[in-house]
């Protein structure tokens, strides 16, 4: 096993990998930009080295600098996390060139799957079911032609894209040009590659993906599926395992296709095959993510495995410690991605200082966080704060548990999307498992309903707001030092005991 691993990432995934290193006795080396000196992953790692200015291109995407740091600090391997350089084949090659193990697939497989167009061709050849569309990059003119052929609506995608960036749904010919250009410029910015292709848009599909693990000795297994249909702007918001619509038979068929795709790509380490599933439960290859997924914890909870630790074992040349038949799924897991964004304001990012952070705990609750109370969320990167994941005996219990966990979660100082999750988890369609990639947009199109008992709650809010104002520490004048009693004994005044017993009587 490696003695030291450099983690070429930041935020919750860097912390996640540091934890895996700590548990395996591997020294962890973090990197940080000038914006991240005080970030959680820096203080949690055994070592930390600066790699440049805040702008990702000059730090977390700075291949030469990162390789240099890895060599200087004696790291034997680099874990790329997700995003940033995790799907960058040149980076993987640079690691190999520097004698450092890249913890992920071989560059060839990354390139094949990294190009959506080449991947489509290869998967098509491997007999993997595909959505009709172009198998290569298109000019605007070609795109218009192809769109006419397969018929609107169509989906425009960046060949180098991922995470919804450089991706646009086009419902009518008139919208094609501006969407094409927006996607192209976004892709150029995000991936430095403006290649765009086009596919028939499947109405209200489910997004279901299969986790695979492949060692470097030819063993490939699948770890069941993840249902990722709750999305906004093609960004996953909630993921769960297993899927409400996948039975054992469908799981085996999807798994077999995923394993076949993995083998045919010469793929190793952890990977994910994403499928679109239509209303008849037909599944079509969407893309392969050649890295650890954000949502890997739901698979960890239902399988009882630690995917990051397995990534280390595979990368260090070990064989998979189990076979397909050893893998069982127990219970149901759900993940919510907590973002610093304002649900009341079109989900715009809401960076800033976290003044309060109350985190859920107790049975079946896991939080993978990249932040802490007092941390100022920088503008410069993806606004995900943490992932809240629950595990329970079945889907109903998991939903109830997630509601409970969300009730315990509080972030002060910045806006987050926490309120959105409560709406989703209370929605009858979600509870019934009737979800597809259009579910969240439909939900957001309907106004949030007022809560029952809102009047009492509003009264309490009003009184509390006054109390906070009256006891604010910075407050001057005659209220200075006004405090709400904290000594509980001092609270047991006569009139309050009276009020309480009245309360009891009123029950």
């Amino acid at each position: 096993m490696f003695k030291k691993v450099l983690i070429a990432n930041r935020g919750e995934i860097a912390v996640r990998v540091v934890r895996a290193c700590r548990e395996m006795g591997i020294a962890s080396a973090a990197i940080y930009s000038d914006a991240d000196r005080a970030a959680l992953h820096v203080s949690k790692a055994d070592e930390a080295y600066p790699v440049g200015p805040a702008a990702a291109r000059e730090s977390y995407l700075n291949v030469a600098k990162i390789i240099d740091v890895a060599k200087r600090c004696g790291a034997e391997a680099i874990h790329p996390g997700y995003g940033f350089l995790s799907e960058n084949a040149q980076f993987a090659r640079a690691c190999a060139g520097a004698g450092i193990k890249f913890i992920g697939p071989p560059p060839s497989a990354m390139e094949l799957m990294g190009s959506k167009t080449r991947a489509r061709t290869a998967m098509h050849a491997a007999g993997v079911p595909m959505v009709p569309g172009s198998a290569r990059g298109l000019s605007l003119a070609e795109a218009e032609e192809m769109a006419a052929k397969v018929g609107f609506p169509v989906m425009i995608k960046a060949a180098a894209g991922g995470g919804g960036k450089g991706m646009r749904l086009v419902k009518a010919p008139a919208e094609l040009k501006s969407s094409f250009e927006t996607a192209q410029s976004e892709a150029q910015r995000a991936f430095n590659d403006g290649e765009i292709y086009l596919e028939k848009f499947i109405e209200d599909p489910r997004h279901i993906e299969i986790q695979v693990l492949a060692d470097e000795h030819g063993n490939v297994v699948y770890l069941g599926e993840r249902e990722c249909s709750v999305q906004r702007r093609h960004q996953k918001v909630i993921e769960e395992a297993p899927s409400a619509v996948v039975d054992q038979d469908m799981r085996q068929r999807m798994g077999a296709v995923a394993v076949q795709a993995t083998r045919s790509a010469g793929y190793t380490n952890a990977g994910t095959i994403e499928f679109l599933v239509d209303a008849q439960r037909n599944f079509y290859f969407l893309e392969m993510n050649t890295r650890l997924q954000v949502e890997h914890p739901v698979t960890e909870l239902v399988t009882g495995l630690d995917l990051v630790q397995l990534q280390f074992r595979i990368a260090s040349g070990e064989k998979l410690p189990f076979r397909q038949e050893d893998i069982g799924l127990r219970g149901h897991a759900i993940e919510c991605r907590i973002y610093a964004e304002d649900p009341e304001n079109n989900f715009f990012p809401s960076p800033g200082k976290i003044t309060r952070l109350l985190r859920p705990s107790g049975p079946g609750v896991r939080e993978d966080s990249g932040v802490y109370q007092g941390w100022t969320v920088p503008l410069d990167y993806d606004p995900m704060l943490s992932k809240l994941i629950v595990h329970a005996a079945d889907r109903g219990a998991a939903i109830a548990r997630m509601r409970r966990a969300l009730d315990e979660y509080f972030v002060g100082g910045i806006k987050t999307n926490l309120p959105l999750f409560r709406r989703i988890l209370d929605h009858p369609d979600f509870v019934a498992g009737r979800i597809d990639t259009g579910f969240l947009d439909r939900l957001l199109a309907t106004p949030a309903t007022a809560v029952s008992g809102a009047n009492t709650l509003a009264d309490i809010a009003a009184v509390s707001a006054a109390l906070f104002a009256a006891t604010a520490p910075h407050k001057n004048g005659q209220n200075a030092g006004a405090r709400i009693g904290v000594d509980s004994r001092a609270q047991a005044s006569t009139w309050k005991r009276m009020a309480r017993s009245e309360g009891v009587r009123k029950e």
Partner: protein
Amino acid sequence: MIYEVTIAEKTYRVELVRTGEQWTCKLDGREFPLDVVSLQAGDLSLLLDGKSYEVKQENAGPEAAVVVGQERFAVAVRDPRSFRSRRRAGGDERGPRKITAPMPGKVVRLLAEVGAHVEAGQSVIVIEAMKMQNELKAPKTGVVKKINVAKGAAVEAGQSLAEVE
């Protein structure tokens, strides 16, 4: 102490009297039995008729908010003797027909010119932040009266970018 607290257009008159560690409270004249302790700064435990409520203070953006249980209430607290709070109270009124930057970022495209007619909800400006492009839409149907920024400009949260009239 007397405060005027505005929640969703409704204004409450909250009268607090403190004697030692004890508080008594009148809400719009009603005696409001107050069994409250501070768990930590910005976090109250309040018992009312036996029901237990945890109330947390959230300070996001210009307007204050408190969270009662899981319900979030935007509040504007006005201390009649205070001046500053009057401005904050204003924060809850209907906004102007401006297009403002909801967060810091960079203007990557202008989709309309001054004088152009725009429909409510039509995209006018695209800003990029945290690697996401976001289209800022016209708050109402009308004519673009002003555009205060150029393509490529860095903008601050709350900055007025354009006006539709």
